[in-house]
């Protein structure tokens, strides 16, 4: 009985020490994860900055006109095509619009 009590006491001491060591170990692990999180968040922000700068309308317009040789649609080149409300076979006509850009090439109209 006496031996068992001593053993249990020693075990308790070991458990206590192990718990303290493990808390410290987990503390280091949490800190590492936090540092990694900060780095990832920083990288995410940098990518967001890059994305926003690349998607800026001013830049897109510049690339479209200078690099791709595009021009804004001229008068009459953009036509909104609406779906007629009395189209046959449609019980609840959707309201979406279809936008068509007409490309005028030497007098011919390709839609």
């Amino acid at each position: 009985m006496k031996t068992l009590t001593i053993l249990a006491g020693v075990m308790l001491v070991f458990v206590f020490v192990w718990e303290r060591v493990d808390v410290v170990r987990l503390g280091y692990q949490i800190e590492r994860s936090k540092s990694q999180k900060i780095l990832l968040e920083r990288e995410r922000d940098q990518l967001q900055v890059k994305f926003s700068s690349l998607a800026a309308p001013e830049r897109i317009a510049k690339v479209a006109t200078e690099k791709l040789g595009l021009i804004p649609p001229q008068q009459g080149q953009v036509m909104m095509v609406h779906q007629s409300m009395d189209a046959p076979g449609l019980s609840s006509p959707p309201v979406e619009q279809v936008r068509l850009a007409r490309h005028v090439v030497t007098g011919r109209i390709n839609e």
Partner: protein
Amino acid sequence: MTVGPSRGRRYVMLFLFFCGFSIILFRLVTLQVLQAAELTAKANRQHEKTVSFEGARGMVSDRHGKVLAMNVEVPSVFGVPTSLENPSAVARHLSPVLRIRSSELEKKLRQNKSFVWLARKVEPEQGRRLEQLSLGGIGVVMEGQRFYPNGPLLAHVLGFSGMDGQGLEGLERRYDTQLHGEKRVTVLQRDALGRTIFPKGGKEQVPTQGQALTLTVDEVIQYIAEKELDETVVRTHARSGTIIVMEPQSGAILAMAVSPRFDPNSVSALTPDRWRNRALTDTYEPGSTMKAVVAAAALEEKVMTPGSMIFGENGKMTIASTTIHDHEKLGWMTFSEMIQKSSNIGAAKTGMALGDQRLYRYLQAFGFGQRTEIDLPGEVNGLLKAPKSWGRRTLASISMGQEIGVTPLQMVSAIATLANGGVMMKPYVVSEVRDQKGLLLMEVLPHAKRRVVLEETAKTVTTMLERVVTHGTGTKAAIPGFRVAGKTGTAQKIDPRTGGYSSTLFVGSFVGYVPAESPRLAMIVVIDEPQGEAWGGTVAAPVFRRVGEQVLNYLGVSREDTVKIALATRDY
């Protein structure tokens, strides 16, 4: 026979043990009791670290979620002068990296301080190079910096924030309380090597990020407005220009462009004159655009009908010993033609028919002489004197847009009232405020301020304003396929030298809405001091057309000649 220490030696040993333990006990009492507080504090200093975290400033995005302002972390460099042995050598090493003169750095490093900023918010590459140098007594910390990815786009509305993240101008200032992150202080425990283990008590104070703003502004519409405005201001060598695009039914601002522009990412070298939001801080005499308001008042009060006849005095009329001129000799004309031809004499007669009290009442109802209460800082009241302070000519002058100072925002709000069937809406820029997790904290709903005129009156004025664009002074504002209602304005500016009206300085403007039958946009274009032809119909109306056409295309608004097709469906 037993061999052992004699009794005397045993006493000596006992005494020595007693002395030894007494010394240990004394030392224990000294450390644990007498010096307890001091030593505990010393131990805490060694294994505890107090760190303050500041939540990032909230993001600002347009109505479709495109980012307009955000926070990024950039390095800041500091020095600990008291720990430096050779400040001169350190300064020489730092100088090429920070691009600051060595002498300047050395001066800072020689101060008798334990902390000094050497350069704040430098480029990430500079921070990396400094870390590689690993100079003793020099450290790098990361700080949040405001970044505007679109550069000058919407800069006058967004404003900018200061070095310490406080809002200084525009929305950054107006919504600083919501945007700024909260500061939290946490005590961390660290080991012998200085590595952080965990927060004291196991609880870490996580800083709260600033709230995010969603604007009513559309990035693309803003871009179109700024591009067209900039081109016109440069081409006409104008002093400045303003465009406001508003949704008449809600009062939501879709675009607010001011030229010349500035980049909020680098404002240190600029003067307030450059970042002032002229759309709501500057007043101008609106000139003939005011006739649309006077016409609405006259129709509402039944002083005039579209067919009422007015005599144009052949282009010249004297009031209070001053002569009013029209740009052409006009005889008899209808009230509708008076607006179409923008007759000053006709407008003056309409004002006189209304009388000072009634005209003043309508001017107030249309929002002149008071702030629109838009959620942007710096808005002014404009200049509208009470009738008791009016001179003998004031009634006629105000009727043709003189002796009254308005902001472009007030003018577009007034015209949007007509576009909205006579109901004035409160203009606004921020539509939503959300917390860092995206939870909606505040939603701004359209707010009707008051009914100014009857819907019928608004419709009649719309028909008259359509004629301005089809047959009158505003033909260059016409957008093919759409019905445009609007009014041109050309106002002489006050010559600061003479105090009278200048013959060379003008403000050309156009204010209107489209499509007239069901307005989607109300817009004002103001060009300040254009060189050469300064007529509103020549300088501002074409800008209205170009912006209007592109925006209507972008919004997918149908032209009158829309092709209607029937889509057939087939069941399989």
